[in-house]
């Protein structure tokens, strides 16, 4: 079976939809005038989502001196963007059904996504880039894989089995066997769910950050993804570190000492976040 981006767009309508409040949060990424109190009230209606979000907000990664006990407080203490990203992280990790594609290890997928998100956030802080946007882009960079797993479970299972048998490149195997790869699927989803333009660019170009116009966020996610693999945080025996763009590496301009700090901070935040999100 060969798919085209057109098939994909049509099939996206059958995807599980995110909770309505998360869709609103996604739409508000670049919005300055979002109604915070209304959003806080809507999130508060979902008890499980609120509980997870508050545990994340009170984790040491955010260093709150006073514990946030409501979404409104979290927004006041951490800011709207940071809180929104924690709500999204809490909602996304529980949103896609697992188990329909036996070769797909969804725990490893989310561990890698969370590791990439944590590393992107740490890198962003070192580079004075928006940490919350970096976190979200890192978390969502591989979301196209979930589209393929959810929408075409049997076919994607065959891709994963072939890849495991021959240790081939995942994107190349997807293109050969399905006609599209998970980057294309992620971009289609970004359009379907109306992600912000910044996020869209990062999802489209994190694999080729040296592409003109790719944007600095793509560079951050590219390197954060490589670091997440190199630190072995997915917990996947067959994991492999992808290509590392020398252009992206140079653009970050960090010393070895700074990198070792980045590794340590990434691992600390990762342990705490996975304990909350993948409990």
């Amino acid at each position, binding site marked *: 079976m060969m798919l085209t981006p057109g098939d994909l767009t049509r099939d996206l309508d059958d995807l599980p939809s995110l909770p309505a409040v998360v869709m609103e949060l996604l739409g508000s990424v670049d919005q300055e005038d979002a109604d915070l109190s209304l959003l806080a009230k809507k999130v508060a209606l979902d008890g499980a989502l609120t509980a997870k979000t508050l545990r994340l907000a009170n984790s040491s990664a955010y260093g709150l001196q006073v514990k946030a006990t409501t979404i409104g407080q979290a927004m006041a203490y951490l800011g709207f963007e940071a809180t929104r990203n924690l709500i999204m992280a809490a909602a996304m990790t529980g949103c896609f059904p697992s188990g329909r594609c036996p070769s797909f290890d969804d725990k490893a997928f989310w561990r890698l996504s969370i590791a990439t998100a944590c590393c992107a956030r740490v890198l962003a802080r070192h580079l004075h880039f928006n940490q919350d946007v970096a976190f979200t882009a890192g978390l969502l960079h591989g979301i196209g894989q979930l589209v393929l797993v959810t929408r075409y479970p049997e076919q994607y299972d065959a891709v994963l089995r072939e890849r495991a048998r021959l*240790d081939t490149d995942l994107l190349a195997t997807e293109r050969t066997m399905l006609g599209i790869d998970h980057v294309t699927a992620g971009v289609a989803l970004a359009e379907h769910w109306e992600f912000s333009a910044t996020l869209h660019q990062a999802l489209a170009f994190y694999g080729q950050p040296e592409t003109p116009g790719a944007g600095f966020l793509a560079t951050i996610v590219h390197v954060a993804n*490589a*670091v997440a*693999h*190199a*630190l*072995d945080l997915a917990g996947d025996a067959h*994991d*492999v*570190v*992808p*290509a*590392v*763009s*020398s252009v*992206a*590496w*140079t653009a970050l301009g960090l*010393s*070895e*000492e700074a*990198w*070792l700090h980045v*590794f*340590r901070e990434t691992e600390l935040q990762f342990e705490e976040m996975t304990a909350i999100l993948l409990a």
Partner: protein
Amino acid sequence: MSDDHVLVPVTRAVPGMVLSDELLDSHGVVLLAKGAVLSEAIIASLGRHHIDMVPVARVEAHRAPDATAVQARLDVLFRRHARDDDNDWAGNLLRRYVEDYRLERQVAP
């Protein structure tokens, strides 16, 4: 007291230590529960309750990382990165830094 506990003078207690037993004051009232994590404030208050020694959990001795195992795992993870490929210097640098990190090597600032 078993091997995983150690009695520490309050003057040498530091934040982050974990109580291995509940702590009673001179009247037998529980001051702190077993498992409580000491903080600056708690340590200061112990002095006020005339407590000299605190039982804390012994921290597991730090084991040196196994260099052979670390390198073997990195060989697997970095199997698409040839060490002699000059065009892949960024990938090889990442590998070297992760190796230094895992083996806890000292790095010049």
